[in-house]
């Protein structure tokens, strides 16, 4: 590719032009040097001398929850305990894939995930949590072998366009979504982990056949696929679709960002026991290499302390999973949601769900 080949005959312009580009190139070469000097003084970046990331903080946390959200929380932890955290942020599933690739050499000491499925996928890398931690959380919200535990809960809800759908006509069960009435008006996120976990739960409680029939019904009803929950909420909020299946806290976060009064989309919880009312978790596990690390255990315990659980209630609107802490006042109580009868650890059969989603043409 000849990006900048020039007329070879005009030599006067060449030297001038060369001087210009060379100056740019020289500046580009110098930039690293200049910035290396300045970044030494900036707070978070580690210096060139310490390539080992573990040196820059006491505890290395791989966080699938975003910095915007949990960064302030980690700062609180440091303030309370004096333990500094080197947090590595990423997509929960991509971090899990990265840890699987890293294997024993992983610098990670704690894995904080958005989703139970991603935690399940790295169980082999996680150590058993001490009883002092697991006893704080109900059995259904942690791993069978106690390698990870939920920290906060997120309920599946249905978002609806309040301008076009009266509150009393919002479906109470996911089974209503295949009704002709909602043709082309239902949004889902089939590549998203929370949707897939919900389908897995449906398979476990309703059986393979019913679930497949429902998914086929959705496809035949011209269901709209989106990449993420947040995009579904945007679509409902702008009137693109009337209904969308999302996690409850997306609505609260958007409402906090743009103002509750500006929300055209509203949310409704499905009837108790409906597969659509599954409660999934964001959870945490300690990697094998850090099983004896007191800082790692302290961190997990701190996540399940009353103060931190309250912090989640007010900042993320998620359900606290520690017994005795109340959810945000405008949310129905966790035990009334009562989702489908299932333990989260049963959601491990993701491959079966993926195969089914591929079969019906949603993936």
């Amino acid at each position, binding site marked *: 590719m000849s990006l*900048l080949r020039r*007329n070879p005959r005009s030599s006067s312009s060449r030297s001038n032009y060369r001087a210009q580009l060379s100056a740019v190139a020289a500046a580009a070469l110098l930039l690293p040097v200049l910035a290396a000097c300045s970044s030494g003084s900036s707070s978070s970046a580690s210096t060139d001398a310490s390539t080992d990331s573990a040196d820059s903080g006491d505890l290395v946390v791989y966080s699938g929850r975003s910095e915007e959200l949990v960064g302030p929380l980690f700062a609180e932890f440091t303030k309370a305990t004096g333990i500094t955290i080197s947090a590595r942020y990423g997509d929960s599933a991509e971090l899990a894939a990265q840890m699987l690739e890293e294997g024993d050499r992983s610098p990670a000491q704690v894995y904080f995930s958005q989703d139970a499925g991603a935690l399940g996928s790295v169980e082999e890398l996680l150590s058993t949590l001490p009883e002092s931690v697991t006893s704080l959380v109900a059995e259904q919200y942690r791993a069978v072998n106690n390698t990870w535990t939920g920290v906060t809960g997120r309920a599946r809800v249905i978002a609806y366009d309040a301008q076009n759908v009266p509150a009393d006509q919002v479906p109470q069960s996911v089974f209503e979504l295949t009704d002709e009435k909602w043709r082309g008006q239902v949004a889902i996120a089939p590549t998203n982990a929370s949707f897939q976990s919900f389908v897995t739960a449906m398979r476990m409680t309703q059986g393979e056949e019913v679930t497949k029939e429902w998914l086929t019904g959705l496809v035949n009803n011209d269901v709209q696929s989106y990449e993420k929950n*947040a995009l579904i909420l945007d679509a409902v909020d702008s*009137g693109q679709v009337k209904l969308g299946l999302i996690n409850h806290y997306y609505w609260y976060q958007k409402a906090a960002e743009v103002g509750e009064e500006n929300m055209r989309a509203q949310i409704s919880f499905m009837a108790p026991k409906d597969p659509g009312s599954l409660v999934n978790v964001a959870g945490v596990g300690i990697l094998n290499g850090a099983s004896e690390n007191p800082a790692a255990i302290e961190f997990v315990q701190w996540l399940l302390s009353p103060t931190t659980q309250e912090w989640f209630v007010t900042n993320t609107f998620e359900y606290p999973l520690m017994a005795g802490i109340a959810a945000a006042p405008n949310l129905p109580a966790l035990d009334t949601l009562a989702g489908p009868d299932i333990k989260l650890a049963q959601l491990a059969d993701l491959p079966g769900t993926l195969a089914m989603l591929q079969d019906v043409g949603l993936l």
Partner: protein
Amino acid sequence: MRNKDNAKAPPLLFWGAALCACIAAIPLVYLAIRIGGAGFNEIISILSRLRTWETVGISVGLAIVVVTACLLISYPTALLLTRTQLPLRRFWFTTVALPLAIPSYVAAYAWVALIPGMNGFWAAALVLTAVSFPYVLLPLLVSLRSADMGLEQVARSLGGKPTAAFFSTTFRHSIPAAAAGSLLVALYVLSDFGAVALLRVDAFTRVIYTSYRASFDRNTAAVLAGMLVILAVILISLERKARGRSLKFRADKGVSSITVARPLTPVLSALSSLWFFAIAVITLGIPITSLLIRLAEGTLRALDWAELMNAVVNTAWISALGAVIAVLLALPIATLTSQFHRKSTSTIESISYSGLALPGIVIGLSLVYLSLNTVPFLYQSFVLLAFAYAVLFLPKSLGASRSSLETVPPALGQVAQTLGYSPLRAWLSTSGRISLPGIAAGGLLVMLTAMKELPATLMLRPTGFDTLATELWSRTELAAFGAAAPYALALILLAAIPSFALSRGFLTSEKETMVSA
């Protein structure tokens, strides 16, 4: 002007280039390991899945449509800029390279925010064309201007109509440039994830991402990614064929070969201005306006200027470092392939291009795996991240370096050596010096692309090291689009600097060509 086709390259140069190409091919080693882990039956079952081929078809279709659209936009645009006295010509010259500064995911998001219902194949084609057409336009501009007008005049003096004369001479001369640009665009479309995901197209990369994200099945994902590499190899060989068809003659000295900029009639002038205006609105105006609207809508938390500036500084220097490494890796390959045309040298070049079709997540994971198994002390260090950028974007620097080195007669370096210069010093004082602008341009292009890179950055950056792309990602993950807008705008502004420098280069030389004419 070149060494004879059967000339043999100096062994040091050949093996140096081969080593650099192998470094660029590192991700393929990882893919091979993972595909090997998949087992024969699994591979067959993936390949026999109808869905796999459907999505491959969609991706290939998208690449064809986008490349065609880029060519249809670039040819008239380049002709207007090089051959006519277009009003505000200098301004448009600078503007046409700027869309390179806009990451595909930002453009797609901005369009969706403005037109909520927008989605699907054609929407993705529009957005991808808007962000990638300068890859075709820039080389075309250079080619059209360096084309020998003398040939076209000879063709006309022989009775050819102006259009026929153009197509039989200048157009043929421009085919390699257009093909090289098209190759970059096609590979870009095949590997893009951000735009197709946001616009809800069932592209092949989505399937790859799903098998990483949802099933944590790295072997299946590797088989799928391997298919992309095969597609890339096919495209690279197509480009090579097109390059072979170029016109390599020049008219004799008696014929005037200076490009003449023709005046336009008022109507044509107005229409051309409208054309450029439309391009500017679609590629720059709409995304930037949409971001400004989001910015004005306000946000939950006030903008932290120190955080933003920290991200700007980090982005600038890490991408510059990546560009420097990419140029250093590209130079031996470019020197070799520009002077020696043999099967072995073209293999070296193809190898260094093959990674460009891979989505960032595959490159990221492959460097995670390979660095931990070879140089664990470098894992998640600045060095590794900059190196990743160099591996990812080496082909972009390679093309620019090669074509500018091709214009230097090898005899110059040989003369310098007969004067007692060492080979390296001879190269530096001849080829290296003369083609410096092209080499620098390649570096700028790498820097520009590295600034926008996300998936590999997330995996390989030192813990706690934030760039504009990662900060932007962190905010959009949370649906805090208002808070994301300043970062998106800062990223566009920062990436506009190298884009501007690239187009500035054309403008300067253009002005002086006119004066000397």
